[in-house]
C-alpha cells in the first residue's frame, strides 16, 4: 500500500500545478501517468477491468493497469467489475516461475568454478617461493653457499612473480558480466595445462631434490626461476587464446528480431557460439529500439481478420482429408476479393499525419516552456534570493504547460508506458541543469530509443535462452544459425563468413592524366 501512497503524492503534486484543467480532463490525463516505476518488480502485473468514464481513451486495452487515485473516481465511473487489483495474468505466472527456478541452480556452478580457479592460482603462485624456501628450512647446513648469483636470481624471481601477479589480476580478475550455459573451453584447457605443468614440476622436485637432499642451491634456485619463466609464457598463451584471437573480424553476423524485423549486422572474430551470443546480446541493449508490444497490435488484428474470413465445416463425417481441406481454404482465401491492403494504406497515412501534427504541437509547447526559464549568473544570484529555484523546482514550474502535449504525443506513438511523470520531471531538470535546448530535451521522447535508456522494469527481455543445433562451445562457422529466445520475442542470428579478399595493385603515372576536347559544332552554309 505504500506504493499507492507514493503515487498519490505525485498525482496531487501534479494537480496542484495544473490548476486550470477541469476535473474530467484531469481524470482522463491521470489515466496515462504510470506510477509503475515505484512498484519495482510488480510492473504491469495487475489488471483491473473497468468501464471507461466520459472521455474515451487510447491504450486502455489489454494490460495497462490503473489504481484510481482521483477523489471523484467513484462518482464518474458507471461500474467497476472484474478482478481485484492484484490479479496476475497467465503470462506473468510463467515469467515469475521462470525467474525463480533459474536463479538458484546456476550460481553453484559458477562459484565452484571460481573457487577451483582461485585455489589453483594460489598454489601456482606459491610454488616457486616454496621451491626456494624448502631447502633453506629443511637442510640449511648442507647447502653450498651461493653468493651474488643467487641473490641476483632472487631479485629476478621476485620481479617476475610481481609481473605475473599484476598480469593475472588484469586478465582474470574481472567481474563476470554474464552467466553462460557451458564452461569456457579455452579457460578450462588452460587450467588443466597449468595444473599438469605445476604437478610435473612438483613431482620432479619431490623426487630429485627433496628425497636426495641436493646440495647445489644455485641449481635449485635456477629451477625455480625456470618455473616462473614458464608460467609467464603460459600467461602469454592465455592472452593470445582468450583475448587476441577473436579480435580480428572473420564473421559477419546478422541479427533479426522476430516480432518486427528490426535487424543489425555485427563483425566478430573466432568465437564460440555462446560467446558470440553474449556479444550479440550486449549490443542488443544498445542498438535495438526497445521492444514495444503496443506496436504489434495492428498486425495482429489484421491476421485475425484474415483467419476469421472462412470457416470450413466437414459434412462428410470422419475420414476427412485434412491437408486437402486446408489447401482448399487457402485457395478460397486467395480468390476472395480483399480490400485490407486499402485499409492498411489509409490507416498508415492517417496515423502518420496525426503523429506529425501532435509532434508539431509538442515542439512548439516545449519551446515556449523553455523560454520562461533563465539561468542566473553568480552576481545576479545575490540580488534576488527570493525568486531563485533549483533545477527540480524550475522543472516542476514549467512542466504543466507542456504536459498535455507531451502526453498526447506519447499516447499517439504508443510510448506512454515507458515514461512516467516522475521520469519526465527528472529528465527535464537534468536538461535544465545542463543547458540543453528544447530539441535536446525532446530527443528522448520523439523516437523510441535503445532498451538501455529505459527503466529496467520496462524491458521485456531479461532472461535469455540460447537455442542452437550445434554445441554451444563449438566455434562459429559460415551458415550457422542460432536463436536467442526470451519470453516475448526472439533474436535470430545468422552467421556469414567475411569473404577472402583478393587485392591487387595498379600503378598510375601521375603524368598519364591527359584529356581531349570533344565538340559537336554546327555551321550554317
Amino acid at each position, binding site marked *: 500500500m505504500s506504493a499507492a501512497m507514493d503515487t498519490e503524492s505525485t498525482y496531487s503534486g501534479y494537480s496542484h500545478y495544473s490548476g486550470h484543467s477541469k476535473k474530467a480532463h484531469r481524470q482522463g490525463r491521470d489515466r496515462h501517468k504510470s506510477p509503475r516505476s515505484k512498484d519495482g518488480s510488480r510492473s504491469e502485473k495487475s489488471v483491473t477491468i473497468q468501464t471507461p468514464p466520459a472521455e474515451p481513451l487510447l491504450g486502455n486495452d489489454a494490460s495497462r493497469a490503473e489504481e484510481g487515485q482521483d477523489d471523484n473516481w467513484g462518482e464518474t465511473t458507471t461500474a467497476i467489475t472484474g478482478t481485484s487489483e492484484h490479479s496476475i495474468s497467465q503470462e506473468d505466472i510463467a515469467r515469475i516461475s521462470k525467474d525463480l527456478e533459474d536463479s538458484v541452480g546456476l550460481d553453484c556452478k559458477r562459484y565452484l568454478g571460481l573457487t577451483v580457479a582461485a585455489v589453483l592460482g594460489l598454489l601456482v603462485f606459491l610454488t616457486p617461493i616454496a621451491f626456494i624456501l624448502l631447502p633453506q628450512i629443511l637442510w640449511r647446513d648442507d647447502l653450498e653457499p651461493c653468493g651474488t648469483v643467487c641473490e641476483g636470481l632472487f631479485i629476478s624471481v621476485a620481479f617476475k612473480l610481481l609481473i605475473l601477479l599484476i598480469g593475472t589480476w588484469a586478465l582474470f580478475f574481472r567481474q563476470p558480466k554474464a552467466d553462460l550455459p557451458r564452461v569456457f573451453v579455452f579457460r578450462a584447457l588452460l587450467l588443466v595445462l597449468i595444473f599438469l605443468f605445476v604437478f610435473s614440476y612438483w613431482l620432479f622436485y619431490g623426487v630429485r631434490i627433496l628425497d636426495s637432499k641436493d646440495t647445489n642451491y644455485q641449481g635449485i634456485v635456477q629451477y625455480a626461476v625456470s618455473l616462473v619463466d614458464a608460467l609467464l609464457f603460459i600467461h602469454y598463451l592465455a592472452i593470445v587464446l582468450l583475448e587476441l584471437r577473436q579480435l580480428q573480424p572473420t564473421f559477419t553476423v546478422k541479427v533479426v528480431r522476430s516480432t518486427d524485423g528490426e535487424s543489425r549486422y555485427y563483425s566478430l572474430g573466432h568465437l564460440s557460439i555462446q560467446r558470440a551470443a553474449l556479444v550479440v546480446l550486449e549490443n542488443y541493449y544498445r542498438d535495438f529500439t526497445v521492444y514495444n508490444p503496443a506496436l504489434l497490435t495492428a498486425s495482429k488484428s489484421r491476421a485475425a481478420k484474415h483467419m476469421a474470413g472462412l470457416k470450413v465445416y466437414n459434412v462428410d463425417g470422419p475420414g476427412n482429408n485434412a491437408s486437402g481441406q486446408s489447401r482448399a481454404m487457402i485457395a478460397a482465401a486467395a480468390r476472395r476479393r480483399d480490400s485490407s491492403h486499402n485499409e492498411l494504406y489509409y490507416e498508415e497515412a492517417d496515423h502518420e499525419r496525426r503523429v506529425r501534427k501532435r509532434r508539431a504541437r509538442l515542439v512548439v509547447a516545449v519551446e515556449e516552456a523553455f523560454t520562461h526559464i533563465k539561468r542566473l549568473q553568480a552576481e545576479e544570484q545575490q540580488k534576488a534570493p527570493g525568486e531563485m529555484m533549483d533545477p527540480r523546482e524550475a522543472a516542476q514550474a514549467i512542466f504543466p504547460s507542456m504536459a498535455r502535449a507531451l502526453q498526447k504525443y506519447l499516447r499517439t506513438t504508443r510510448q506512454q508506458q515507458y515514461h512516467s511523470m516522475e521520469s519526465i520531471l527528472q529528465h527535464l531538470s537534468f536538461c535544465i541543469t545542463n543547458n540543453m535546448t528544447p530539441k535536446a530535451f525532446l530527443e528522448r521522447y520523439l523516437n523510441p530509443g535503445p532498451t538501455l535508456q529505459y527503466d529496467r522494469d520496462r524491458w521485456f527481455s531479461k532472461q535469455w535462452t540460447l537455442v542452437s543445433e550445434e554445441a554451444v562451445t563449438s566455434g562459429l562457422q559460415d551458415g550457422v544459425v542460432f536463436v536467442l529466445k526470451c519470453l516475448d520475442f526472439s533474436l535470430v542470428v545468422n552467421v556469414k563468413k567475411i569473404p577472402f579478399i583478393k587485392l591487387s595493385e595498379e600503378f598510375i603515372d601521375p603524368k598519364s592524366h591527359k584529356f581531349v576536347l570533344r*565538340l*559537336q*559544332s*554546327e*555551321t550554317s*552554309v
Partner: protein
Amino acid sequence: SYLFSFSFQQRIEIHKLRQGDNLILGFSIGGGIDQDPTQNPFSEDKTDKGIYVTRVTEGGPAEVAGLQIGDKIMQVNGWDMTMVTHDQARKRLTKRNEEVVRLLVTRQSLQKAVQQSMMS
C-alpha cells in the same frame, strides 16, 4: 507488318542564293573527323564521322533542291566529304567562285514490308 531501313544515294543540285555579299545555300552541317560522332543524332552508326545535314531553312535553295534534314553528304562537286574536318567541309561548300554545288547525299529511309502493300 514490320519496318526495315535502307539507304539510297541521291544527287542534289543546289543553286546558291545571293544575300548581300554572301552566297548562301540554306542549310547547316554538323560532323567531321575532328568532332564527337556520338553526339550526332542523325547517324545510324555512332562512330560515323561524316558530314550530316542538321538543319534546312524553309524556302531556301537547299529545300527547293530537295535536300532533307539528316542526309549525309558524301561528295561536293566531286570532292570527297567522308573524311574531312568540319572546317574543311564548310570551306568546300562556301567557295566564292561557285554558284552551283552538286551534292551526292545518302539518305536513310523506312519502308513498310512489301508484303503488306501487296495484301492491301
